[in-house]
């Protein structure tokens, strides 16, 4: 089965095409890109007036399976991803049981294969049970299909273990992703430590809890000549450290979420538990720093940190509600509204942040660009469509979004994975 996308304005990380072209996908691979392609038996999609990007890649999601299927399953998570324009996602290992061994990694791989829409890679744990005590069998996790390793949700707090993890992972040839949080500084915290927490009387999560670990891991990566990826950067100070380290040639990369470039701690003033997230929403200054870092390349990519929580889990007071925001279905709208429309990023830069860079970071050599011989993963976006986020429109099992009711610009019209339409409006 072939697929022909007509009249596509192609947006790659390096350029946005001036003229529409056709894209022919055969056997899951981009066979031809040309001004006018004839393919009699191919299914045709007309992308007139739409922008056509390489299939978006989100290297940081939580699909909750196994263990918390009432919040999300691999199947509902994949549906939410396809609706959000994503053709490849990486699932964090803080499931129950944790993805710290081959059988759980294979469960994720096999379930995703059974559903068969988009690409799903598990991320294995760095330490057994996310306890920062013993390294996982990293060779085995890689062989089982893990794309990277992370203790996300927890930081690898023991510096000796982190050092060993970096040495071992470098040998195995697998990327480590750090959730940067000094847990000693954040016990019982609800939100960013600052004016709002002082005003509301909540226990705060101080900025240094993040930047201390960023600094530590930069030092270790430098010392060991190892690679390191920093998850969900939220803080100006962390960004300054990363910028300086990159200038020195240290092999680090970093990501940021839509909520961290859109919202501030002010969102907690209404006591909305859907705005409780880890790392917490910070200040205007931090949001500006995240945007600047996206623009200048200090932050390499955008991820959702899609963290679905069931209604009953979030319907608590702020102290007791879990952290997390469902993000896959609002990511493109927020990125277009907050970054492209405001000239923080150009369209090619957005393709870079949401497709090319994540592909490069994860070593997916046939993804992240629309070019012949690349995988037939495509996201079609209507750049002008305006829409309102509504609870009833979510296909994720959970609706814990602080963006409900918000008007956004830029909407995913169709998602194509390996030449197969996995979502269309």
């Amino acid at each position: 089965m072939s697929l022909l996308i007509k009249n596509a304005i192609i947006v790659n990380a390096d350029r946005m095409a001036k003229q529409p072209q056709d894209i022919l996908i055969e056997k899951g691979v981009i066979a031809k890109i040309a001004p006018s392609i004839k393919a009699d038996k191919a299914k045709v999609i007309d992308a007139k007036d739409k922008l056509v990007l390489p299939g978006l890649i989100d290297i940081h999601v939580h699909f909750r399976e196994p263990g918390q299927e009432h919040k999300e399953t691999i199947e509902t998570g994949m549906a939410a991803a396809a609706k959000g324009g994503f053709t490849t996602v990486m699932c964090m290992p803080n499931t129950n049981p944790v993805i710290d061994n081959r059988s759980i990694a294979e469960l994720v791989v096999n379930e995703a294969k059974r559903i068969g829409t988009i690409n799903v890679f598990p991320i294995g744990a760095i330490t057994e049970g996310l306890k920062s005590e013993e390294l996982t069998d990293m060779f085995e996790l890689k062989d089982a299909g893990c794309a990277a390793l992370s203790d996300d949700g927890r930081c690898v707090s023991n510096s000796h273990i982190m050092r060993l993890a970096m040495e071992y992972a470098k040998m195995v040839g697998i990327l480590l992703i750090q959730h940067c949080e000094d847990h000693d500084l954040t016990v019982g915290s609800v939100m960013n430590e600052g004016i709002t927490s002082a005003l509301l009387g909540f226990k705060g999560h101080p900025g240094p809890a993040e930047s201390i670990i960023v600094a530590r891991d930069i030092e270790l990566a430098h010392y060991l000549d190892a690679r390191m990826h920093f998850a969900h950067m939220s803080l100006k100070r962390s960004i300054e450290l990363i910028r300086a380290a990159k200038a020195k040639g240290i092999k680090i990369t970093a990501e940021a979420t839509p909520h961290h470039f859109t919202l501030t701690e002010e969102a907690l003033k209404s006591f909305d538990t859907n705005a409780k997230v880890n790392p917490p929403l910070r200040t205007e200054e931090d949001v500006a720093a995240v945007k600047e870092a996206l623009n200048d390349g200090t932050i390499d990519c955008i991820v959702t940190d899609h963290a679905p929580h069931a209604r009953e889990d979030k319907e608590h007071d702020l102290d007791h509600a879990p952290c997390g925001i469902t993000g896959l279905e609002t990511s493109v709208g927020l990125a277009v509204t907050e970054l492209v429309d405001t000239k923080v990023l150009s369209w090619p830069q957005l393709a870079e942040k949401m497709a090319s860079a994540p592909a490069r970071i994860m070593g997916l050599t046939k993804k992240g660009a629309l070019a012949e011989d690349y995988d037939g993963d495509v996201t079609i976006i209507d750049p002008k469509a305006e829409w309102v986020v509504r609870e009833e429109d979510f296909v994720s099992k959970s609706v814990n979004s602080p963006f409900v009711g918000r008007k956004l610009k830029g909407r995913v019209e169709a998602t194509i994975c390996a030449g197969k339409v996995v979502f269309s409006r």
Partner: protein
Amino acid sequence: MSEWTKHDLLDLQDVSRDEIELILQTAKSFKEVSARDVKKVPALRGKTVVMLFFENSTRTRSSFELAAKRLSADTINIAAGSSSVSKGESVLDTARNIEAMNVDAIIVRHSAGGVPQMLSRHLKASIINAGDGCRSHPTQALLDMFTIKEKLGRIEGLKVAIVGDIRHSRVARSNIKGLTTMGAEVTVCGPATLVPREVVSLGAKINYDIYDVIKKSDVIMPLRIQMERQEQKFLPSLREYAIRFGIDKTKLKEAKKNVIIMHPGPTNRGLELSAEVADGEYSVILDQVTNGVAVRMAILYLLLGTKEKPTEDG
């Protein structure tokens, strides 16, 4: 062939290629002694040799003791961990007291690197290092070189792989030094957490790909995985180690036809080395033990035949 002039054997750092050749040559003539019906020559009659072991040992201590006895020396054994040390005496005090009984050689093993050097500076007796810390184990390296030469006819130009816990291995450090001095090419292989990058400065290459290492090597020497070190979590699991780095029959399929497998002992069978390989056609592990006695006879003979040294105390 050079003459032996050293009073001690502390490590292989300043032992020349000629001196190593001399030890190996001398050992060759002593090997025959142990094969006799009456395994004794009078070479060191009247000499006293003390084995001062602050760390447990089965192989090395009995090997030294037999070597001394077959040369007709008088020997005593001190398991220092259980004697005066537990009463608070320092290493140097213990050694000085022993020397005061007019002994000719002290063979010392200690968990701290540098103890043999310290004793050498203060004592007149010949000091032989039987293993200090993670630093040096010169007699093991010498008996390994003797065995390689015996089995493969030469050392120069051979490719030798040392596999496993390089970080904590005195055997690895002494072998890297000795073998490179003799013109062999040494590659170390093991989990990156147990292979310090700095071994490159000792003259060894690092290669984490065990299959590639096996394919290229003339000699493969897995080291004991020191379970007691696992408290520091250097390995994800012993299981992953055995699967990835353990030397077994399957991995050896790609090995050279005349490869030899060595191990300094004691082995964890099924971990760094499978039982079938340990007992198999390539294994020279028991030859190493046999040769150990001959090499230690040669060392005792050469050291106790040289003249006295000046000391800081004297």
